[in-house]
């Protein structure tokens, strides 16, 4: 059994490492530094940590001002308040200007669990990827989260990094290459392709393992970068013999599924796509595992969708 680490803990660790190597790194939070783990940076570098209080719009504005004064500014709060409450500040002060602000939003998606719908942001990827110049990252585990946060710090310009609340299995090893904009193929298979983003990756991998036991070979791709999306990886999968299942802890509109469908439509590729994620429906209170099952993004749901897709493909491509 792999170690389980929440990607917000990876964030806290990465921040402390970045703070040591770069005196220009500053971190801001909006009264959630204990939860987002930006508090780890505060402990190590109190002079470079700024609390905005419960004021997410001002959090983003302050981060922007620091960025335009030569700092690499990390701004963290929950995904709901970062991208929802402060959307227009992100749009006009950060994205439009190309400010060097790294928005690190934790507690994204249903993984929030018991807090319920008001705190389960299922549209943040959609909101952020619509902004010109915004890089959108959604790491699946501890290793990829730390590597992507460091890569974000090294690049100029705004980045949205989506982080989860719940501990999730570590999938990658420290030697793995994680490059912004490049999807990672974790399982080979030609019957069906499962495309995953963020914390549901371990569910996708579990589904692939269960499918293999039944003789279905499923490829699994981790789209840790939603924007810029890895078009080549999508094209390769869409030209294969099987269909595609996308899975995300997000509304099916505007997220990974949409991004994949856009590329396929543009390329004129017509394989069938099953999009798993929250349909036209808000979240609710429950344990993350229960919610993943209820909303159809757990391993069993992914397996079922892949099985149905394989059956459909076989029926529709039979001579």
């Amino acid at each position: 059994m792999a170690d389980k680490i929440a990607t917000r803990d990876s964030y806290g660790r990465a921040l402390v490492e970045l703070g040591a190597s770069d005196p220009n790194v500053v971190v801001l939070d909006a009264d959630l530094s204990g939860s987002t783990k930006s508090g780890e940076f505060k402990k190590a570098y109190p002079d470079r940590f700024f609390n905005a209080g419960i004021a997410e719009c001002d959090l983003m504005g302050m981060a922007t001002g620091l960025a335009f004064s030569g700092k690499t500014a990390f701004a963290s709060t929950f995904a709901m308040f970062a991208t929802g409450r402060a959307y227009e500040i992100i749009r006009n002060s950060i994205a439009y200007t190309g400010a060097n602000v790294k928005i690190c939003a934790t507690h994204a998606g249903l993984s929030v669990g018991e807090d319920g719908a008001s705190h389960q942001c299922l549209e943040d990827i959609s909101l952020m990827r619509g902004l010109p110049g915004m890089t959108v990252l959604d790491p699946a585990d501890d290793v990829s989260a730390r590597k992507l946060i460091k890569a974000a710090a090294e690049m100029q310009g705004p980045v949205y990094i989506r982080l989860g609340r719940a501990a999730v299995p570590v999938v990658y090893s420290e030697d793995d290459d994680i490059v912004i904009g490049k999807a990672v193929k974790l399982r080979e298979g030609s019957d069906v392709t499962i495309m995953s983003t963020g914390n549901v990756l371990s569910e996708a991998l579990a589904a692939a393992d269960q499918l293999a036991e039944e003789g279905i070979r499923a490829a699994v791709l981790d789209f840790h970068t939603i924007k810029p999306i890895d078009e080549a990886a999508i094209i390769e999968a869409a030209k294969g013999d099987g269909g595609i299942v996308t899975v995300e802890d997000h509304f099916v509109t505007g997220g990974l599924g949409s991004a994949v469908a856009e590329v396929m439509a543009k390329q004129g590729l017509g394989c069938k796509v099953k999009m798993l994620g929250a349909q036209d429906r808000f979240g609710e209170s429950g344990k993350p595992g229960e919610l993943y099952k209820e909303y159809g993004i757990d391993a069993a749901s992914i397996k079922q969708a892949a099985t149905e897709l394989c059956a459909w493909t076989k029926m529709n491509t039979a001579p």
Partner: protein
Amino acid sequence: MEITKLKEMAQTIRQDIIREVYSGNSGHPGGSLSCADIVTALYFEVMNIDPNDPAMKGRDRFVLSKGHAAPALYAALAERGYFPREELTTLRRMHSRLQGHPSMNKLPGVDMSTGSLGQGISVAVGMALASKLDGQGRVYALLGDGEIQEGLVWEAAMSAAHYGLDTLCAVVDHNGLQIDGRNDDVMKVNPIDEKFKAFGWNVICIDGHDMQQILDAFEAAKQCKGKPTAIVAETHKGMGVSFMMDNAGWHGKAPNEEQARQAIEELGGVF
């Protein structure tokens, strides 16, 4: 710059504002004219800046939080030598660097892109945090009085006081009018001075068209330690042009040729 020269420059900038908005046949003359004296004082006397090196390290910064007063900012930048004065007539045209609201990535000298009210002051707080960390540069932000109806202004006001940002000076251009009419009718903002005081700011109230008072206030702000300063400047919308003065109808309307000629002549210029 001599105070008489500053007063003349403010009138020149007012003429530029009329030319810009007339040429673009679009823009906001009223609130640009009301803040012309303040912007002139900043760009020609108060701020440590270099038109030949707009991104100079350690410089003072100006954030036009009331971004719709872009014509006043553009006029000051052009007169100060950041870009050719002839370009002022391209305001709001396709491919112009003089966007409807200031865009820092298009025009050198613009320290922050603004236009959506309330955001500039918050960014200015971030800049002042950096100036405190780095020990160099002051930050000036200009707000409209209608703008302070935005909640974000007060989030930023709280932060600036909390962090003791004495390198930050905000000016409220209190002309009493906004798009839908008088502040008092749309949404009361008074007393502005007491609000900022209650938020922990050093507050100075002045006549925003009296150049000596403006200069004295900026100097007093520099001397104040441990807290940010808010200058509440009593102004007239459309100041200097008889038919625009104190008239909310000239918030965002361009003059026709006859009106532009009269305005520029009233301001001591030649159309």
